C-alpha cells in the first residue's frame, strides 16, 4: 500500500475532471445507462433536495492514515485544512440552521489545529446529534490526542469510526499495517469512558465498507457478526454498524481500474439499483462544506469538485432557502448510494 496520496504521486485519478471523464466513457457509452437516464426512467430527474437535516463539514484532508479506498485521498501529505475564519462562518450557519445533525469529517478532523475550539463552540448550538468521524488510530497516534475520549465525552460527541473487519489481516490490508491493533486499543479506551456500552447515551457507531471490489451485504447481519466477534475476541462494545458502499471515485476508482474490476463493479452497482433508495438518498437532506468553505451536495461530489448548482456556493453567503431551491448534481458515482439497501454516511437508507 502506498504511503502517499494519489495527489502526491501525481496520479491521474487525483484529478476530478479525469475521474469524471473516465466515469462518462467506457461501459457508460453503450452497455450501461447513465445515472441520469436511470433517474429519468424513475421520474426522479432532476433530483431535488428535501428539508436540510444534516450539515457535514470537512475540516481538512490531512490524515495520519493512507487508506486504500479513501474517497478523500487523505493522508499526511495533504495540507488542505479549514481555517478558523471559515470555521467561524460555519458556526454562524450552525447557529441559524434547523438541521438536527452536525457531522465533522476529514481526513482526521482532530488533526485540524482548531478542532477542539470548533467542537467547544459548535456544541453550544444545541444540535441534537453532533457527530465526529474519528479514524480511531488518531487517539493512539500521539500523546496530544490521548485525551480525545474524555474530550468527546465532555462535549457529548457521537463518535463514528471506520472498522472494515473484525480481523487484523483484512483491516490492515485496507487501512495500513498496525491499524487494527491501534483501533482495538482506541475502542477499549472509548468503552472505558462509556462510549458504545449497552444503554449508554455516549454513542459509538462503526462504519463497515467492503475491503475490495464487492458490495456490502445486509447491514443487520454484518452488525450481528461484528458484535459477536468483537465481544468474544476483545470484549469491545459498540452501538450500530453502518454498512457503506465504496463509491467509484478517487483511490477506489484507481484500484478498480488497476485490478481490472472496474467494469464488473459498475455492472454490479447498476444491477443493484434500487428505486426506493433514491427516495432517501443522503444528498436530499445533507449539505457538505469543504475545508475552504464551498458547498456540495455530498462529500463525494466535494471530492469530484462538483459544487452545488446554485448562485450561492460558499458558506460565507449561506442562505438556506435559496440553496434548497436547486437540482442536485449527479454522475455515475451516484449508483453507489442507490445500490441494494442504499448507502449513506449513516449506513443503509431503505
Amino acid at each position, binding site marked *: 500500500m502506498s504511503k502517499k496520496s494519489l495527489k502526491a504521486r501525481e496520479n491521474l485519478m487525483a484529478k476530478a475532471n479525469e475521474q469524471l471523464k473516465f466515469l462518462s466513457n467506457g461501459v457508460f457509452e453503450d452497455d450501461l445507462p447513465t445515472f441520469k437516464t436511470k433517474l429519468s426512467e424513475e421520474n426522479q430527474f432532476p433530483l431535488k433536495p428535501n428539508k436540510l437535516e444534516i450539515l457535514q463539514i470537512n475540516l481538512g484532508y490531512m490524515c495520519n492514515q493512507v487508506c486504500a479506498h479513501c474517497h478523500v485521498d487523505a493522508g499526511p501529505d495533504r495540507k488542505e485544512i479549514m481555517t478558523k475564519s471559515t470555521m467561524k462562518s460555519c458556526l454562524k450557519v450552525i447557529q441559524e440552521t434547523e438541521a438536527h445533525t452536525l457531522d465533522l469529517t476529514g481526513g482526521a478532523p482532530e488533526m485540524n489545529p482548531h478542532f477542539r475550539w470548533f467542537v467547544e463552540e459548535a456544541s453550544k448550538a444545541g444540535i441534537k446529534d453532533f457527530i465526529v468521524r474519528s479514524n480511531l488510530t488518531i487517539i493512539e497516534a500521539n500523546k496530544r490526542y490521548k485525551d480525545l475520549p474524555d474530550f468527546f465525552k465532555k462535549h457529548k460527541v457521537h463518535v463514528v469510526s471506520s472498522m472494515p473487519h473484525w480481523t487484523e489481516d483484512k483491516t490492515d490490508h485496507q487501512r495500513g499495517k498496525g491499524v487494527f491493533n491501534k483501533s482495538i486499543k482506541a475502542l477499549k479506551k472509548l468503552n472505558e469512558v462509556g462510549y458504545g456500552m449497552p444503554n449508554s447515551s455516549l454513542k459509538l457507531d462503526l462504519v463497515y465498507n467492503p475491503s475490495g471490489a464487492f458490495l456490502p451485504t445486509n447491514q443487520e*447481519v454484518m452488525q450481528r457478526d461484528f458484535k459477536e466477534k468483537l465481544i468474544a475476541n476483545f470484549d469491545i462494545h459498540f452501538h450500530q454498524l453502518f454498512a457503506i458502499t465504496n463509491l467509484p471515485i478517487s483511490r477506489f476508482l484507481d484500484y478498480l481500474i488497476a485490478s481490472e474490476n472496474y467494469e464488473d463493479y459498475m455492472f454490479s452497482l447498476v444491477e443493484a439499483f434500487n428505486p426506493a433508495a433514491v427516495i432517501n438518498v443522503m444528498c436530499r437532506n445533507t449539505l457538505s462544506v469543504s475545508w475552504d468553505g464551498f458547498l456540495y451536495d455530498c462529500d463525494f461530489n466535494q471530492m469530484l469538485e462538483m459544487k452545488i448548482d446554485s448562485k450561492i456556493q460558499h458558506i460565507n453567503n449561506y442562505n438556506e432557502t435559496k440553496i434548497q431551491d436547486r437540482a442536485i448534481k449527479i454522475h455515475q458515482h451516484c449508483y453507489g448510494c442507490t445500490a441494494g439497501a442504499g448507502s449513506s454516511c449513516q449506513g443503509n437508507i431503505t
Partner: protein
Amino acid sequence: MADYYEQKDLRNFGKITEWSEELGEKFFDYYSKVFEEGKLTGREKSLIALAVAHVVKCPYCIDAYTKDGLQRGITKEEMMEAVHTGAAMEAGANLVHATQMMKKYKKLSH
C-alpha cells in the same frame, strides 16, 4: 473454445428465462428462496455453495460464491476450510470405491 467461460457471461445468467420463461422463473424463485436465511444462516449456505462450486468445478459458481463470501465478511481461512471439506468428500467418495476394488480383487484371486 476460447469464448467459453468468459467472466462477463455470468451477467447474462438471468437471460436464460427469455427462452423458457416459466422454467427459468421457477428456477430463479427456487434458487433465491433456498439462499434466504432459514434454519441455516445465509453465511453457512454461502460456504456450502462455495464447497459445492469446487466439487462441480463451476468457474461461475466459484467467482460468485467467493464474492458472496467476501460480502458476508467470511474470511479466506473459512473459505479454504469449506473448499477442503468439499475436496475431502470428493476424495472420500473416490476412495470408498477402493472397497469395491478390494472385494473384486479378492474374489478374482485364488
